[in-house]
């Protein structure tokens, strides 16, 4: 066996590591460890020149084991394995010490950080000596992709995948796809009608042969991993048989129960059997069992009696569908914060204080007022206030900027001015018009005579005349002002959906501190997540406007396609095996394996591991009383050595 020559590479990660960890000191320390032939530190190990360092040391200095101390192995382990393989060294002669996520980013004291980094490097060096060469294995990639969420990002992703000839499922929680975009009136800065550009895409989804659309359905369980996700989808009882329903609408028109419409933000009523909006896809109703008389009181049956197609089915039950997918795209979107959490803004207390999404419905030609801006009493307001940053950029609610409110604030100001004349005030802190054509749109709205007051609307109060009044500092003048208006529109923060925590748990996605889903890398992997094969697109990752959501949907489709069209997927060689000499055939391991990968060989009286089925968790190994089981790359010897070394520093 050739002499073991370990190369150790300590990464600065710019200043990410080097600011806290004394890199040179760690490097000097590594050089003293047994078996270490080369120890270097370098600015960016993952960059080309960094990789080249490793290659050259392997070729020129006989390095045959490699330790890189840098970021999480969950990020760059595959990168460095490839480096080894590119010069003919087995990729598993490699170990990573995580001195960024686990050290420099989480430690206050540089001395403590440096010491911890040394311990982790020592552990990695000790361990890598005992590594064995392993061969990658491949499994067949399932070709179908799952898209979760039928807003604009999910729709775009599904359409792109379908266009490539691959099959895709689109799962939407509501009775119709369309998401938040379907509620909007015009879109900034071009003032395209939102429905006019969205509904053709929605129809394409319904018509595509490659898309299987499941509305009123939720993903409840995901097992397996990239290439072979086993997903359980709960189809909620719609109480309407979609195969029979013709969408004629008789049921809805005859239904006697009225409920505030979620789609219209409660400004109009819908029925208990309803399609959320006229252009819904599928354009077939669902029964809201919480309000339906048939379910609440136990008798009614009007819709069932009147349905000419016999499609109404009160006995429908929730149904679980299980399917295997190669990749998953999550596009579950955002929700608008309920501004009544801040009573100072008057929402819920004053009837003419609306959220921006409610106001979108008010100015929408297909909305509850036919596009006329009206107060509760039916009169046209003479002055409207639009309050920016309601709950955004505010540590009491959401610290982050909601990113699209500045622009829709301008858009709504323009629409209000156009539809009702009168005075329109924007109360803002900063106007962030960063996109293409956005600043130009701001200029246009300025020219239209909309008032801009730089100051955050502090409160909406009733003045002595019974009118609403916005109290604010005009910060550019340095003066306190009370501006009387008839209606106030609150640009409430975009926040993670109420069920984001559950969705994250089910799909194994991380969330950032703001509660939105976390991407694998903020710059270079904006669509990937920490789980291979699970991608995110659109506002579930953070607030973004329509062009960005569409781009992300298409991008996520490309990510998924690049996986599924490869046909096969690499799977880890980390699997268990039995040392036949030592196995006593006690069968303790057999029931422990969740994949039933271990079987008892009656003839030889020993247990065997089915390598095709084993996933490498090592639970069996930990329980083997005779020490006959072992799991590759996580052997007892390797872990013992790692314990010894990390404990010694």
């Amino acid at each position: 066996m050739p002499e073991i020559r370990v190369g150790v590479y300590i990464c600065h990660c710019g200043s990410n590591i080097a600011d806290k960890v004394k890199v040179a000191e760690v490097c000097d320390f590594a050089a003293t460890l047994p078996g270490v032939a080369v120890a270097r530190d370098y600015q960016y190990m993952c960059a080309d020149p960094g990789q080249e360092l490793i290659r050259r040391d392997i070729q020129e200095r006989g390095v045959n084991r490699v330790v890189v101390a840098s970021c999480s192995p969950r990020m760059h382990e595959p990168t460095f394995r490839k480096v080894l393989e590119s010069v003919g060294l087995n990729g598993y002669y490699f170990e990573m010490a995580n001195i960024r996520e686990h050290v420099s980013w989480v430690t206050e004291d540089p001395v403590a950080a440096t010491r911890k980094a040394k311990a982790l490097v020592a552990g990695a060096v000790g361990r890598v000596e005992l590594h064995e060469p392993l061969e990658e294995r491949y499994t067949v990639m399932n070709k179908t992709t799952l898209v979760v969420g039928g807003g604009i990002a999910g729709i775009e992703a599904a359409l792109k995948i379908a266009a490539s000839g691959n099959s895709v499922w689109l799962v939407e929680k509501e009775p119709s796809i369309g998401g938040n975009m379907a509620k909007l009136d015009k879109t900034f800065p071009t003032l395209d009608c939102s429905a006019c550009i969205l509904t053709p895409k929605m129809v394409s989804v319904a018509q595509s042969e490659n898309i299987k659309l499941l509305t009123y359905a939720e993903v409840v369980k995901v097992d397996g991993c990239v290439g072979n996700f086993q997903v359980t989808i709960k189809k909620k009882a719609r109480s309407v048989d979609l195969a029979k329903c013709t969408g004629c609408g008789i049921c809805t028109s005859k239904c006697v129960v009225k409920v505030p419409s979620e789609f219209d933000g409660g400004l109009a009523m819908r029925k208990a059997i309803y399609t959320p909006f006229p252009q819904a896809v599928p354009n077939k109703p669902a029964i809201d069992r919480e309000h339906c008389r048939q379910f609440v009181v136990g008798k009614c049956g009007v819709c069932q009696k009147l349905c000419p197609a016999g499609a109404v089915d009160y006995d429908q039950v929730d149904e679980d569908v299980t399917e295997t997918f190669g990749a998953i795209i999550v596009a579950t979107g955002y929700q608008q914060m309920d501004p009544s959490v801040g009573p100072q803004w008057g929402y819920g207390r004053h009837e003419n204080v609306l959220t921006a999404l409610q106001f979108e419905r008010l100015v929408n030609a297909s909305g509850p007022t036919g596009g006329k801006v009206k107060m509760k009493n039916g009169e046209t307001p003479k002055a409207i206030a639009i309050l920016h940053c309601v709950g955004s950029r505010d540590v009491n609610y959401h610290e982050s900027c909601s990113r699209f409110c500045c622009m829709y604030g301008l858009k709504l100001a323009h629409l209000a001015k156009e539809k009702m004349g009168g005075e329109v005030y924007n109360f803002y802190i900063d106007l962030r018009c960063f996109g293409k054509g956005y600043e130009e749109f701001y200029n246009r709205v300025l020219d239209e005579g909309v008032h801009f007051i730089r100051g955050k609307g502090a409160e909406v109060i009733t003045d002595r005349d019974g009118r609403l009044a916005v109290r604010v500092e005009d910060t550019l003048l340095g003066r306190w002002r009370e501006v009387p208006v008839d209606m106030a529109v609150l640009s409430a923060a975009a926040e993670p959906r109420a069920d984001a925590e559950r969705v994250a748990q089910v799909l194994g996605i991380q969330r950032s501190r703001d509660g939105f889903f976390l991407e694998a890398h903020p710059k270079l992997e904006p669509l990937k997540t920490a789980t291979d094969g699970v991608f995110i697109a659109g506002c579930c990752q953070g607030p973004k406007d329509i062009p960005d959501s569409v781009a992300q949907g298409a991008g996520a489709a490309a990510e998924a396609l690049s996986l599924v069209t490869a046909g096969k997927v690499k799977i880890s060689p980390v699997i268990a095996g039995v040392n036949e000499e030592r196995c006593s055939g006690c069968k303790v391991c057999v029931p422990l394996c969740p994949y039933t990968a271990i079987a008892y060989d009656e003839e030889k009286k020993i247990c065997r591991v089915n390598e095709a089925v084993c996933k490498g968790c090592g639970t069996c190994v930990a329980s083997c009383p005779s020490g006959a089981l072992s799991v590759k790359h996580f052997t007892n010897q390797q872990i013992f050595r790692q314990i010894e070394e990390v404990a010694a520093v």
Partner: protein
Amino acid sequence: MRYAYYPGCSLKSSAYDYERSTRAICPELGVELEEIHDWNCCGATAIPSVDPTASAVLAARNLALAEATDVNGAEAVTVAAACSSCYAMLTRALNYYREDPAMRGLIGQALAAGGRTLAGTVKVKHLLEIIVNDVGLEAVKALVRKPLSGLKVAPYYGCLIVRPKGAFDDAEQPMALDRLLAVLGAQVVPFERKTKCCGGALMTTKEKSALRLNEDLLHEASSKGADVIAVVCPMCQMNLDAYQSNVNTAYGTHYRMPVMYFTQLMGLAFGLNERRLAVGKGTVSHAAVLKRMGV
């Protein structure tokens, strides 16, 4: 229910009617008040303006004394404060002590110099919080013998009972007093300015400004037809009541709005004798209120 009672300076002088009525209703509610021995002034909002740190030390001395008060061996002593300003200043000191390491050190050392120690386990509650949350509205309801039927009451919280922390109710639109008055049978006026400030000590130093704030409050209360404003703080009572004629002079108005402590209204609803509640001791006569109640 036994509490370490912190009356504060006002309740011993200008707000003696508040203390009288508090003392009258608490036994009915099963609330025992054990006055903290040798308490000192909380500092109000004046001393922080002179020395923000020393004011916290002064307030903290009371907390240290409270922790030493015998309240039947309860696990942690709870201070009952009736004055909102005292409540806020005691809470301020306690929060500094609990959450700001530098202030904790300083307060601890200063108290030690006077031979006192503070564990920080003490809780501070406003009397309204105790009645609504600890006693509970059900228990209050059971005591109502003469409901305030037909009496339109504007529930006025002022600032310091709900801010800066909003510990027991919303900092912007609290409801505890609204709910309590409703249980007493009163018709509660929706009072939008319920947490606006009465000006506090500014009545002495910036009278013109303070009168404006009080006029705004009186205007909303009277335009909504209130018969009386219910208050939870001596400062609010003094500014709205004793200075009401100054408001009228300055603004040419004719308000005659009685301003009563919520404890007085509770006592009346419980059927207690109005003398025990010091009812009638307002600058603006309470007669109209009593008449409407048929007392």
